[in-house]
């Protein structure tokens, strides 16, 4: 239940509402809501997915978003000028790129001519500075670090409030929401008064019970004009770092499930209580500067000349990369020695993830008959999955969707093993509590401390026991509610409005047909079709889920792959498919697999053992092993301290490794086309590859799916890497060396304070140079322009991403060349074929 839905009349600290007051209240509530929506959500680290940090600003172009984020967070939205200077000097960005980008900029804002632009590149601009909060101004006049103290206190409370099970004595749950929970703590906490804010607990005890009332009262006391509300509220939420983003995630999940959640607004109210109290105390000294600040917030958000120049330079850098991509795609394809109609020796489907590209290339190089294809790594199987011996449903699907299926590892035959695994897990948990509890922790240390020599040695030397393979997953009925006894603050997992039963045969045939079509998986089928999800096997890494499959909700993808393989091996489904003209040969076996992106190994799951395919399986394993070696050798060149392929394979087991792999760093392109357009060419692990054959796509339903789902997910990934690189303070995960996992949901740096969402610095930087070149994704689609336009015209949110430049769009011609560049407003410009 959310506090925002409480009847507003239950507390009446405000004067009796007249109509004018009601309107003012509405405006304040709207501004608070807009500020909340300006914050990107941050998923908990147990299943984190990449999020576009500019999600709330995607309706604005880069320069305007830059102006807004500079005001509210002091965040840059482009790399420093020196980066562009270096690229121009190196010839990567050409004069033509600069001119094209300049020409594309609004004439009234851009520099007068190209010369002025080139002159501007030579000058560094100072980093943006956020408008001050009352706390900042109070710090200036009092010499007390109020912003730091607020961050520390708020962090101490929020860490307890959002804890998912680290503390044995959890913070009490409060059904009335975060604001009420905070008030219960803040009225007891003596720290602010010890630090020099006498009467703060009393102040908290007297604030309105309803957070919106408090927001309204504080806005009035702080003298905020209506026009100043939105960016001021946004400013306050940004000052809460990842806590505001985690609150925004709570809202995202609630809304996906059809509900609502006011945690973000609650945090805003909490932060405003501090502002109000500090303003009451320091008003005489800061009134003048505060009035200036309010006026600055009230001014419209408009880009400065420098921000426009930066966004032109960024576009020029992207055009430079697009030129290189166009050249790669235009290069003559190596002649294929097999006819397209011949039966492949092996088919393997991988996730579109950029890490699949080098592996697919290596695999295809081993035998001319090997075909690979790319598809979203959940393979269309949106399942809420329970691991072996687990009650917890994991949402293994893109976060834009709600689960359509429920699955669990193991069958009835595994019931006994399931039971004993649970007992073992519960005994382990009891041991963990014994280790942590008061008094018993002393006995634990004295009785078992010396045994840790063995654990230290095995972890230090990277001797990691093999994780037992989970039994094959199967579809199950939905779990009745009430199984989740963890101290979750309410059921925030969205569930689809299904009847909870596994799909019947007709529904399974429908699903199989749809997925085969979406994958463009068509005859000729090989005897063995491998469906390879991906994951990263890592130890001791809080950000491990950032390296897992984003399409599987931040989990590894083998469950979805195994479920699809079972579906497609199903005899009934096969005959159903044949009846609909999508016959799959009887001797074709689908096999689920997991591509470990850290070690570049592939595990095949022999869930439906077939004696007839033993040789095919052995051959496939040999090919995957050889492809792994090739891929590791290629990756070793890019990874620091990786002298050889063998060194790459060991990184995941190293408990001190902060860069086990580069994840999706470097991603810059998304290509939806038949594999023949990209096959045999190196895309350097920087491209998402989605197989798509528009001539097989009657009605362009698959095109619509691609543009609205995988492209959007890819944009979130690309912009997360972008944001974590150009604005590490606002949108980056901080320094891994200082990470302190809090509540099992996220990391703080050091002792406490703000949650750090986004990618850690070590994930986007090798120490000497950035590992990710911040470029907005170039989406290349081989399809008629009219068809693409049609999809964009129906999906405003997607179209906005292209119109405002958060994504670049290209149409490939019938030769697979980048022929048309999308310009805003459903218009296209022809590309210069000479490049």
């Amino acid at each position, binding site marked *: 239940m959310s506090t925002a839905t409480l009847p507003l009349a239950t507390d009446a600290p405000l004067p009796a509402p007249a109509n004018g007051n009601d309107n003012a209240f509405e405006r304040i509530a709207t501004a608070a809501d807009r500020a909340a929506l300006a914050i990107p959500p941050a998923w908990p680290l147990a299943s984190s997915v990449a999020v576009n940090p500019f999600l709330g600003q995607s309706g604005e172009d880069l320069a305007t978003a830059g102006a807004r984020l500079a005001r509210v967070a002091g965040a840059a939205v482009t790399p420093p000028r020196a980066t562009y200077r270096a690229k121009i000097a190196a010839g990567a960005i050409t004069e033509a790129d600069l001119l094209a980008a300049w020409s594309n900029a609004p004439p009234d804002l851009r520099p007068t001519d190209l010369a002025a632009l080139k002159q501007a590149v030579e000058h560094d601009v100072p980093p943006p500075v956020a408008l001050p909060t009352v706390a900042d101004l109070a710090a200036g006049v009092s010499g007390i670090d109020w912003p730091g103290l607020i961050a520390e206190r708020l962090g101490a409370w929020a860490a307890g409030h959002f804890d998912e099970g680290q503390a044995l004595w959890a913070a009490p749950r409060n059904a009335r929401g975060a604001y009420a929970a905070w008030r219960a703590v803040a009225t007891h906490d003596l720290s602010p008064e010890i630090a020099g804010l006498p009467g703060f607990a009393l102040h908290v005890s007297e604030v309105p019970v309803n957070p919106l009332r408090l927001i309204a009262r504080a806005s009035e006391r702080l003298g905020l004009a209506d026009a100043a509300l939105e960016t001021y509220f946004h400013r306050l939420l940004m000052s809460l770092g990842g806590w505001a983003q985690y609150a925004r995630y709570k809202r995202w999940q609630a809304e996906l499930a059809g509900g609502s959640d006011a945690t973000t607004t609650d945090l805003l109210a909490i932060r405003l209580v501090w502002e109000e109290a500090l303003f009451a105390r320091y008003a005489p000294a800061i009134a003048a500067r505060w009035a200036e600040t309010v006026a600055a917030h009230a001014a419209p958000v408009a880009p400065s000349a420098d921000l426009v120049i930066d966004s032109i330079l960024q576009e020029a850098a992207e055009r430079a990369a697009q030129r290189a991509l166009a050249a790669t795609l235009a290069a003559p394809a190596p002649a294929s020695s097999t006819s397209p109609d011949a039966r492949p020796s092996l088919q393997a489907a991988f996730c579109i993830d950029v890490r699949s590209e080098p592996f697919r290339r290596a695999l295809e190089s081993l035998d001319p008959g090997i075909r690979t294809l790319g598809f979203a790594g959940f393979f269309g199987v949106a399942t809420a999955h329970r691991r072996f011996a687990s*009650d917890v449903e994991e949402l293994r699907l893109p976060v834009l969707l709600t689960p359509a299926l429920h699955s669990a590892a193991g069958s009835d035959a595994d019931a006994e093993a399931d039971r004993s695994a649970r007992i073992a897990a519960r*005994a382990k948990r009891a041991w963990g509590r014994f280790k942590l509890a008061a008094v018993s922790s*002393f006995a634990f*240390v004295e009785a078992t401390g010396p045994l840790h020599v063995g654990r230290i040695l095995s972890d230090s030397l990277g001797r990691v026991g093999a994780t037992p393979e989970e039994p094959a997953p199967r579809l199950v009925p939905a779990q009745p509610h009430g199984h989740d006894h963890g101290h979750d603050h309410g059921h925030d997992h969205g569930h689809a409005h299904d009847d909870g039963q596994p799909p019947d045969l007709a529904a399974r045939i429908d699903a199989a047909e749809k997925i085969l079509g979406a994958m463009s998986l068509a005859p000729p089928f090989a005897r063995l079709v491998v469906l390879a999800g991906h994951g990263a096997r890592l130890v001791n890494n809080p950000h491990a889920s950032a390296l897992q499959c984003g399409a599987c909700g931040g989990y590894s993808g083998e469950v979805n792959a195994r479920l699809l393989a079972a579906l497609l091996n199903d005899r009934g489904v096969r005959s159903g498919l044949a009846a609909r003209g999508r016959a799959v040969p009887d001797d074709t076996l689908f096999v689920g697999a997991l591509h470990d992106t850290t070690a570049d190994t592939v595990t095949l799951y022999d869930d439906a053992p077939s004696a007839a395919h033993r040789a095919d399986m052995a051959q496939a394993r040999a090919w995957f092993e050889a492809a792994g070696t090739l891929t590791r050798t290629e990756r070793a060149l890019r990874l620091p301290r990786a002298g050889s392929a063998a060194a790459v394979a060991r990184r995941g087991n190293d408990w001190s490794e902060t860069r086990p792999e580069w994840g999706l760093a470097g991603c810059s392109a998304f290509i939806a086309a038949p594999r023949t357009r990209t096959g045999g060419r190196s895309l350097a692990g920087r491209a998402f590859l989605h197989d798509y054959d528009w001539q097989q796509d009657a009605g362009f339903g698959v095109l619509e799916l691609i543009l609205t789902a995988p492209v959007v997910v890819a944009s979130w990934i690309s912009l997360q890497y972008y944001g974590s690189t150009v604005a590490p303070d606002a949108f980056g995960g901080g320094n891994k060396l200082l990470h302190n996992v*809090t509540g099992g949901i996220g990391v703080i740096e050091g002792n406490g304070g703000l949650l750090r969402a986004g990618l850690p610095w070590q994930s986007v930087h090798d120490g000497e140079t950035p590992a990710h070149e911040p470029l907005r994704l170039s989406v290349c689609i081989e399809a008629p322009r009219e068809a693409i336009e049609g999809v964009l015209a129906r999906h405003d949110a997607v179209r906005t991403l292209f119109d405002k430049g958060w994504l670049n769009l290209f149409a490939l011609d019938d030769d697979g060349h980048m022929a048309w560049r999308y310009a805003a407003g459903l218009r296209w410009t022809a590309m210069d074929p000479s490049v």
Partner: protein
Amino acid sequence: MPPAFPLLPLPVLLILLPLFVPLLAVACLGFAQGGRRRPPHLPRLAEVAALLALAAALALTVALIVLGPGRLGPSMRLDALSAIMLLLVTFVGWIVVRFAGTYLDGEARQGPFTGWLCLTLAAVLCLVAANHLVQLVAAWIATSLLLHRLLLFYPERPAAQRAARKKFVTARLGDVALGAAALLLALAYGTGDIGSILAAARQGDGGGLAVAAACLLALAALLKSAQFPSHGWLTEVMETPTPVSALLHAGVINAGGFLLIRFADVMLLAPGALAVLVVVGGFTALFGSLVMLTQPAVKTSLAWSTVAQMGFMILQCGLALFPLALLHIVAHSLYKAHAFLAAGGAVERVAAIRRPGPVAVPDAAAVARAFGAALAIYVVVGLAFGLTHKSPQAAVLGAILIFGVAYMLAQGFADAAPRALTRRTAVYALATSFGYFALHAAAVFVTQGVLPVTPAPGPLEAGLLVLAVASFGLVAIVQAMFPLWAYHPAAAGLRVHLSNGFYASALFDRIIGAWRTDRPPTGSTPSRT
């Protein structure tokens, strides 16, 4: 006064070369790198140096077994205590240096970091091997100053500065106390040779000066071990890379306890000082372990655990159970080094907690049965290890073991727990009790002759023993029934105060002006370089 120990032969003395020289050489090499990223070969060389030190400690241990205890040159000694500490420090040192070599890859100033790390290790080794007051005091101060450099590896972080300032103030008070204690010892016994001082103290010599020295040693140990109310710095020094936390919590923090054990013979001359150790250590142990329950961040929770464990170790020293205190230092160090370095797995561990279903909550009857069963286990296993020969002090510690084991059993005795779980927890309880007694017996055996026998308790000690049993027992019962009361609204305020460590650190901050700032009123987004 003649030295108590014979001088060990030159070949043994030469083992000190691989113990110290490689570490010092690598330190120099590290400092020479300056801000260079990925200094070539340095991580590998540092690990080799740490391994050589570990090998030297092993060689010294062999020499000790073969030749018996003795002096090493003018100011060092080799006995069971110094050998165990050398082994512990070099082992943890090797692990930490190895970890840091990869962990800091790509970091600016990796070279100087490695340098400070190696120097700190060398200083701790000097400390634990000291046989002369001058070396002891010098190594003690050097350890603290070198650690200070590591704690400020990111000097621009305000929180790092806050914690380091608190640490600095506390450490300097400790330095003064130790310096004064050393001076008084030298005056009381007319020598700086620790072996001679201990031998004389064992005869009851020393008089009022020695008693005063013991009081100052106790003070120095309390400050060094982050005992209430000086614990604030320890729970806030996560502002530096994880390997430093591991080294601090598994190595440097032990200096206080080591000091008390080293001067055990002197400490026995001052029952009043020991009583203070019992009270402060016992309180800190319970306080720290309760605060830890409320901590949602993994490293912070581990730091509070260290406060508590050090309190328990100080309690053991206060009860004159020095061999057990030594065991506790070793056991805790190994556990805590691993726990800090593996802290990155906390996300997965928290996620795993919920998977097997709800926790079975024991009711009062189950708790009572668990305490009864734990007592039975204690008696049975204890008799096997000669329970009847134990001092009352050791019996009290055994009682605390019962309380802990009872908590384990209570989880299995809960009505909702399946039988198989009950069996497993019972097996764990038995294994824990067995391990506990076996390790105690080993600790007493190894330190025979080096550490004094626990004296029979007088009225003061008897009173403290009762107090200890009562307070630990009460907390244990409260803990076992925890889910039944912790979420009562009446407990909410207590939880807030407890989670803030009763504001001792906030008051410390206020006194030293830790939240004062000179920075201009600009943006408040956290900065990182």
